[in-house]
């Protein structure tokens, strides 16, 4: 094994949070920083030729190669696990920028309730109202503490939206349920397509509070505080699952990379697949650096004073487990923290499929855009007489109607799946079909967790990560309730031909849901129930910080990216302002 000269900082993973930390350290310190990215280089230029549904949506060209590293999955600790042999329920990105290159750009703050879910529930409903085997806990920080970092992250991206609550002053055109904001969004809201406009009118007439989704696909040209300028979104329709050909979608490679490249103290090594974080045991309290395999297959040890673990959500807990850092979570005893509180979102796709009698021009679209209502999210509705806890959002997306994935979604009256009748109906309904979509908050449960698989190995011979996850009746009841509410909206829109979701059964590994999985190395206020403190610093190894969605104690309904970026900025401030002066625990 080759040992390289020591650096001050090693960052594992060149996605959103890894590159954001690299940018902050590059701008604000003279530390030597190396980013270790196992995938290849990505440049904005290549996105002009990615507008191809076969290679990018069917074959998922931008995503992690499951031939080299899959995950395994089972429904409970009693079952045997099977490999997810091909990408399905979530899509980790591959290469520089990670999943931040192909994301949909939904850039919403979490509602304040999210961060204090446990204590707020106890206060309002008492402990008996929570599902029996839940493992909910407060996050250890509040919305108020994070607000200024949310503002900075929004200014970095240039998020498009309309504020619903500026310092307590409500605006009915924005989301009146959002936490108080210090300022307006940097750019105005995205335009919406026809169906989203129908959804907005209907929900408004019903007394709900529709708002345009906050979006990282900016509505007007914007120059951020780092002097990075991006153009406006053109609604080309090749968005989620694709890189943006003009850079209107905020992506790590168009937002962070140009700034990083100006700072000579930061270098990025691609093709560097980190296998271990090295340490001399917990008593020492420090990690020594990282070991990786480079593109030529050689093992390399990179000593570092400070390590940021910023890989894909699932690879963060996996690297801790492979490195023997922290105690693996045991669902039987409740002891151990690594792998605990693994969550996804509930469903996150169509709840009611609707068949209209007018063309929708679905090819004009963007990923994040559209209209949502938060009237049922977090604890905005009283759960006292409901059979579930957790909130949900109903939405009409600026739905993309790319033909391979959309053709053949038909009313129940059409029974055939191929042949003349199916073809005729497919042509007729192709541009007149869309959905009322749903995203639900996923509570944390004692039995949903992550550990190393005993059987299957990755291309390096290391055990792959095993996911143990299933839905509970809580989620099934949530979907049932949400379907009824969505049908009310569909009726209000005057739509008579529709197919409601058939109900939630077992957790599926095959159908795409979202890439917004979370947990495994969660943050918190004590080392007994969390892996990192609220500065995302490891409790036992004080020179190890863990960034990203793996630190989130449960699955808020909306996507985690903006919150991940905000927390990373908070960590950067704490590291630059306090840790570098006095290395050691920040809490």
């Amino acid at each position: 094994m080759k040992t390289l000269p020591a650096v001050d900082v090693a960052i594992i993973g060149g996605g959103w949070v890894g590159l954001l930390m690299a940018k902050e350290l590059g701008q604000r310190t003279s530390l030597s920083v190396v980013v270790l990215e196992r995938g290849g280089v990505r440049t904005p230029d290549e996105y002009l030729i990615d507008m191809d549904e076969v290679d990018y949506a069917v074959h998922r060209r931008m995503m992690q190669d499951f031939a080299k590293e899959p995950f395994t999955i089972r429904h409970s600790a009693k079952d045997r696990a099977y490999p997810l042999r091909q990408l399905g329920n979530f899509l980790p990105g591959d290469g520089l920028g990670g999943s931040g290159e192909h994301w949909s750009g939904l850039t919403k703050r979490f509602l304040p309730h999210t961060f204090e879910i446990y204590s707020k529930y106890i206060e309002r409903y008492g402990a008996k109202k929570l599902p029996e085997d839940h493992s909910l806990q407060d996050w250890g920080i509040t919305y108020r503490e994070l607000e200024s970092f949310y503002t900075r992250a929004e200014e970095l991206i240039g998020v498009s939206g309309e504020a619903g609550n500026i310092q307590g002053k409500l605006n009915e055109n924005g989301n009146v349920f959002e936490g108080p904001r210090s300022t307006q969004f940097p750019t105005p809201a995205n335009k919406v397509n026809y169906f989203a406009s129908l959804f907005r009118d209907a929900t408004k007439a019903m007394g709900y509070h529709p708002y345009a989704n906050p979006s990282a696909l900016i509505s007007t040209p914007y120059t951020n505080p780092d002097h990075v300028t991006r153009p406006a979104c053109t609604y080309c329709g090749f968005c989620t699952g694709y890189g943006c050909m003009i850079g209107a979608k905020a992506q790590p490679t168009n937002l962070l990379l140009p700034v990083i490249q100006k700072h000579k103290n930061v270098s990025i090594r691609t093709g560097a697949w980190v296998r271990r974080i090295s340490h001399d045991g917990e008593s020492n309290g420090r990690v020594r650096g990282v070991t990786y395999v480079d593109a030529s297959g050689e093992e390399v040890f990179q000593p570092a004073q400070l390590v940021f673990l910023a890989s894909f959500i699932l690879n963060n807990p996996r690297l801790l487990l492979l490195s023997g850092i922290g105690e693996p979570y045991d669902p039987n005893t409740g002891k151990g923290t690594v792998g605990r509180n693994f969550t996804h979102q509930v469903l996150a796709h169509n709840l009611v499929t609707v068949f209209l009698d007018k063309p929708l021009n679905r090819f004009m679209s963007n990923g994040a855009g559209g209209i949502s209502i938060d009237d049922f999210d977090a604890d905005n509705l009283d759960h006292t007489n409901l059979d579930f806890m957790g909130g949900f959002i109903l939405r009409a997306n600026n739905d993309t109607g790319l033909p391979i994935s959309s053709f053949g979604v038909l009313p129940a009256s059409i029974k055939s799946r191929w042949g003349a009748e199916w073809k005729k109906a497919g042509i007729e309904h192709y541009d007149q079909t869309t959905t009322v979509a749903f995203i639900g908050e996923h509570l944390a449960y004692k039995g949903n967790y992550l550990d190393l698989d005993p059987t299957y190995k990755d291309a390096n011979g290391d055990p792959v990560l095993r996911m143990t996850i299933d839905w509970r009746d809580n989620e099934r009841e949530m979907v049932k309730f949400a379907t009824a509410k969505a049908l009310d909206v569909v009726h209000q829109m005057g739509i008579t031909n529709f197919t409601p979701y058939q109900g939630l059964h077992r957790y599926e590994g095959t159908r795409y849901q979202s890439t917004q999985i979370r947990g495994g190395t969660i943050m918190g206020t004590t080392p007994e129930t969390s892996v990192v403190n609220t500065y995302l610093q490891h409790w036992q190894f004080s020179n190890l910080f863990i960034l990203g969605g793996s630190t989130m104690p449960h699955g808020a309904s909306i996507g985690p990216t903006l919150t991940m970026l905000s927390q990373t900025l908070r960590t950067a401030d704490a590291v630059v302002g306090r840790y570098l002066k006095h290395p050691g625990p920040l809490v």
Partner: protein
Amino acid sequence: MRRREFLSWSASGVGGLLIYSTDLKAFVSLAQHGAQAYRLRFFTDEEARIVGAATARIFPTDEAGPGAKEADVVTYIDRQLAGPYGYDCRRYTEPPFEDGPPEFGYQGKESPREIYRDGLKQLAGLDQMSPNDQDAALKKIENTIFFTMLRKHTIEGMFCDPMHGGNRNLVGWQLIGFPGPHMSYYSDIDTHYGVAFRPKPITLQQMSGLKPNPMEDGKCAKMHRAEGNK
């Protein structure tokens, strides 16, 4: 694998006129412009005829418009099976292989190439049958992995960018009013509410002015190993 000429088509993209011989021995195109040969990369002649017959029943040519035949779905599938997808380059193929619950997806060992090769044996002679008999034969295998794949690939071949070999002359996109990739709908997305807006379909190459590099033309270690084993 034997490589031989099977199809020929107009190399000029949009505008070629296609006519098929009735006995389905070979697809014949009367190109308005220069013709270009396509050599089968995976299928044998016989297999290609069966796939041609089957996909033409899945997505028939009828009064509702052109179908799999005009879109040249066979070429699309042949190229996919000859490339990384056919060899499972991006699928985890380490043992043990055990049947699992359907929620966790296909757990089998067989690659798409193997599934096709086996599946097509069950459809031997399909190209010689009457349409009714063809439908009956397909009905029998409707619930197999092979048929699920064939149906999925037919849709892909109907509506892919023509650089992949299907959707020839953009017949698929024209059928459903999909315009292909365009740079901008900035002033259109909110100005055609409820009214059909149908820009002229164009290909990725026409839009970008760049030469695309479809995945099926790539290679992976599994393909090199398979070739070495021959």
